[in-house]
């Protein structure tokens, strides 16, 4: 059930998407450092880079969906559209994040990457909360 104000939800979703992009970019930079320092192998670096690449594409798709909804409805976004937006968020961004999380677990949560993943996790949960779906998304994350 969606309880937040639709217009505010769109605005907050956009802000959360921007935060996630910033943290994801930090994650890419840290991965590069770890690879150059020899902490992770070429194969691990490649898998994580692929994960961030897919997450970045999903993020762009989510932003495009967000913009399309806003263009169509302005500040009067129907709740049904917000439901669709969440499905888009859950189906593309969260799914790609979960793939990335699996790769990260191979590297180890104690590394600097673990910190970035924790920040990304918190941001994704905050975004899911906008849609009233934090519990659902948390369950998916914890299932990994």
């Amino acid at each position, binding site marked *: 059930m969606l309880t937040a104000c639709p217009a505010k939800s769109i605005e907050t979703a956009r802000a959360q998407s921007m935060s996630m992009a910033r943290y994801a970019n930090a994650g890419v930079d840290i991965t590069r450092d770890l690879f150059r320092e020899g902490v992770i192998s070429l194969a691990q670096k490649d898998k994580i*880079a692929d994960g961030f690449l897919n997450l970045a594409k999903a993020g762009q798709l989510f932003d495009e969906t967000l913009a399309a909804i806003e263009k169509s409805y302005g500040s009067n976004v129907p709740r049904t559209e917000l439901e669709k937006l969440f499905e888009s968020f859950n189906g593309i961004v969260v799914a790609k994040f979960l793939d990335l999380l699996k790769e990260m677990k191979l590297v180890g949560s104690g590394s600097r990457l673990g910190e970035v993943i924790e920040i990304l996790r918190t941001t994704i949960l905050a975004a899911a909360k906008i849609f009233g779906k934090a519990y659902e998304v948390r369950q998916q994350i914890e299932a990994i």
Partner: protein
Amino acid sequence: MNEKIEFLKQLISILGNVTLAEAVTWAEVEENARALRAEGHEGETDENGIS
């Protein structure tokens, strides 16, 4: 001019304790991730022998 802007940024940061993190787009993340993916594969050739 740039020095003045930098000075003002620092001043705002100190006075307001504001984090001046630059906004990053998902497109920039993709570009950064693509560059990371390519790292360590320099000089490799594809199946057609093209590097």
